[in-house]
């Protein structure tokens, strides 16, 4: 199945996309012959336990999950499988979180922290690793990001190859029409956040671009 693992709705202050519009736009993509089975909302520096997209997911035939994108001292990290326990241990609102602490706490709470757009100039994990930072228990990073600028993809690929990491894909959509530009193709079905974490840890996935999802 194809899931976009990195999207922002208007809950993030720099997005102009409503969640319902994302869902409707997947219909446009499907009519054009592309495949998208769902998406994960990764709002900046927040996680709302009470937000429930199950009705929208059911009516639109999509998997709609929740995660978060956090600011750390090693760049941005996408966090999947957020639990109340993790929220009690890590202040999501902090800019410049200790990345090693975040990764360890995510591991301990049944979540997973995945470096976002690691090739990004200035703030990507690639630069910190070049300066000698260790990866710790990080085994998955975002390989394809829909907002990558020229040169950033090459850096992400180099980081992944040199450290034998696995790579996800996400659009980093801040506009409706950007959703699905990059996605992650999973071998197994995923119905909720716990299953997403399980599959990310199992490693049976690969990053794809929207063009890779056309049938036939």
């Amino acid at each position: 199945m194809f899931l976009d693992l990195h999207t922002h709705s208007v809950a993030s202050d720099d997005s102009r996309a409503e969640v319902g519009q994302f869902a409707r736009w997947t219909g446009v993509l499907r009519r054009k012959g592309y495949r998208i089975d769902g998406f994960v909302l990764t709002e900046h520096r927040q996680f709302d336990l009470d937000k429930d997209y199950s009705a929208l997911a059911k009516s639109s035939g999509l998997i709609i999950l929740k995660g978060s994108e956090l600011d750390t001292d090693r760049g941005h990290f996408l966090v999947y499988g957020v639990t109340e326990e993790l929220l009690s241990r890590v202040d999501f609102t902090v800019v410049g979180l200790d990345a090693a602490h975040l990764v360890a706490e995510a591991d301990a709470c049944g979540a997973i922290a995945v470096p976002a757009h690691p090739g990004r100039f200035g703030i990507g994990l690639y630069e910190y690793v070049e300066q000698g930072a260790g990866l710790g228990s990080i085994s998955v990073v975002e390989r394809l990001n829909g907002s990558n600028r020229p040169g950033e993809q090459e850096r992400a690929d180099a980081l992944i190859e040199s450290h034998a990491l696995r790579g996800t894909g996400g659009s980093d959509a801040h506009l409706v029409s950007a959703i699905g530009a990059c996605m992650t193709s999973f071998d197994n079905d995923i119905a909720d956040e716990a299953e997403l974490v399980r599959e990310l840890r199992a490693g049976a996935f690969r990053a794809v671009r929207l063009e890779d999802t056309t049938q036939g």
Partner: protein
Amino acid sequence: MPNSPLYFEDVEMGDEVGPIERSVTTGQVREFVQVWGARSEPSRFTDPDAAKAEGLPGAIVPGAMSMALMSQIITGWSPSMVLRKLDIVFRQTVPHNAPLKLQGIVTDKGVVDGRPQLECDVFMEDAEGTRLVIGKATVTVPARG
């Protein structure tokens, strides 16, 4: 701009608007800043040295001027389109004298408060395809009959 007006029924989700290709010259920015008024010059908008002193690579197009450019995506689409709201996010600075591509895409259509309405993503890209300015436009358009 098309000579004939477009109607609500003519537009579908996924329709593309534009692109408009242009660049903004330093002279145009100076004229804009003069009309804009109430600024101390030289500034990061008109003077490369003042811009560099602020850590910028060169003089930049003012945000208000970028907004005006973004509005042209809709106002230049068809004489029947009325731009109701333009909600912009400035992601990167816009340089002078560089090729820019302005484009939109219809992402939603419906009737709101009895008025046919469209929503469009709008964006400004540089020559490498990097989105410098993004946003959402809310547009009203007449229905046939």
